[in-house]
């Protein structure tokens, strides 16, 4: 809960000029955080900060367009804010970014895998780099590192890349992300890879939580997944349709995905959805030396071109 008091103070200081500030509060139990929309000083007092603050709050910004909104961001969340700004989906003057250095957030799925169930959480304490959870009278201690989200272990943006107010001491950034997970996956045979997706997608319940949690999915009610015109996805309940929706999501995020992992986090059946987007990002990086959500003034690679491309060979026959 480092920096929390300072953060609250800064928010209170700026609250009069803002319609609201989005942060986190404790949810229905001590393990679950929940987004908090602060309008009064009393609201601010409810705020929490730490490894349980898993949500990327940038997701709310496009729908709050037109209001003066403050948003609390971790390093990874700040990239979404930058990408939204770059695409002019939100206005710089309308938002105030409270940036923090983040050492990683938990993966509830990993904790659940350990505990079997997350239904009766009695208390949760974060103490340095350990996490103590009491369930049904029994205390379970975890090293944060062991239950951190996958994205945190390869994090290169611990500190908010963009902030109007930065609270805390910046963390030194580590080495480049080499996308080893993607390479490892692709070491499998083509057949196994397809089987992996087909079996996974057969579990998909088409709830579109992945899309709703995605900060870059700004189409919302107008998503092509549910429209008749255009009618990309038929009404049939097929693996092809579900898988194809993930392809749509990946293509629509090409050069835009900031790898916050909200799609995967939000998925109720635990589909490994970030892998597809990471593959896309890996190729975008190799082709265009581009990473989404790092520069406001950059141009999304698929919305631009070079007459002579650096890394695309002309296709001769």
């Amino acid at each position: 809960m480092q920096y929390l008091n300072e953060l609250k103070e800064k928010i209170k200081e700026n609250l009069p000029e803002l319609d609201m500030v989005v942060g986190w509060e404790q949810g229905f139990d001590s393990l679950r955080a929940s987004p908090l929309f602060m309008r009064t000083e009393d609201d601010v007092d409810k705020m929490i900060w730490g490894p349980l603050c898993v949500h990327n709050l940038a997701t709310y910004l496009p729908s709050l367009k037109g209001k003066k909104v403050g948003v609390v961001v971790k390093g990874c969340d700040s990239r979404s804010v930058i990408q939204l700004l770059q695409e002019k989906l939100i206005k710089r003057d309308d938002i105030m970014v409270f940036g923090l250095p983040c050492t990683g957030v938990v993966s509830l799925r990993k904790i659940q895998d350990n505990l079997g169930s997350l239904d009766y959480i009695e208390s949760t304490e974060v103490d340095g780099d350990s996490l103590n959870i009491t369930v049904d009278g029994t205390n379970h201690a975890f090293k944060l590192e062991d239950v951190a989200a996958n994205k945190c272990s390869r994090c290169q943006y611990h500190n908010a890349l963009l902030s109007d107010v930065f609270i805390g001491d910046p963390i030194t950034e580590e080495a480049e992300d080499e996308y080893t997970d993607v390479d490892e996956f692709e070491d499998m045979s083509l057949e196994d890879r397809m089987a992996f997706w087909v079996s996974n997608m057969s579990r998909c319940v088409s709830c579109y939580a992945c899309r709703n949690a995605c900060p870059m999915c700004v189409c919302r009610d107008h998503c092509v997944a549910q429209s008749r015109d255009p009618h990309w996805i038929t009404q049939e309940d097929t693996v092809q349709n579900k898988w194809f929706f993930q392809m749509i999501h990946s293509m629509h995020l090409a050069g835009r995905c900031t790898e916050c992992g909200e799609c995967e986090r939000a998925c109720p059946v635990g589909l490994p959805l970030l892998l597809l987007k990471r593959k896309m990002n890996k190729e975008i990086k190799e082709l265009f030396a581009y990473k989404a959500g790092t520069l406001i003034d950059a141009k999304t690679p698929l919305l631009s071109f070079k007459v002579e491309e650096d890394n695309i060979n002309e296709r001769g026959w």
Partner: protein
Amino acid sequence: MSADSGKELRIVGFLCNWCSYGGADTAGVGRFQQPTDLRIIRVPCSGRVDPLFVLKSLVNGADGVLVSGCHPRDCHYSEGNYYARRRLEVLKRFLPVLGIDTRRFEYTWVSASEGQKWKTVVEKFTEGIHELGPAPVIDATMIAKAQILAATAL
């Protein structure tokens, strides 16, 4: 194996109206014999080809997909094929993670005058697809198999 003999495979082509569709016409006028597998969908510009059309085809049973547009710098709409080039290259590189053989998708540039080149493209691509054979079919059997495979792998 020559693509002419044996069973036909399902190959979908997306051709821009101004160059490649014209090139295919030129090949026809020149009576350049080609394998018969390809079915051509006419679009105004390669820039109109949403990569999702290609993915949609591949997921739903196409054995191969070919996109062809005007040569870079010659786009009728001046910039369409530049956008297409980026999008289609990204698409091609994306396929492996899905477990789809990249050779099942190709894009190229053929002008309206290049009838002979079009024949070569169709021959080579069709031959390549026949070498790969039919694409895996996603049906009840495959899903069941995949689920067993996934269960044992974990």
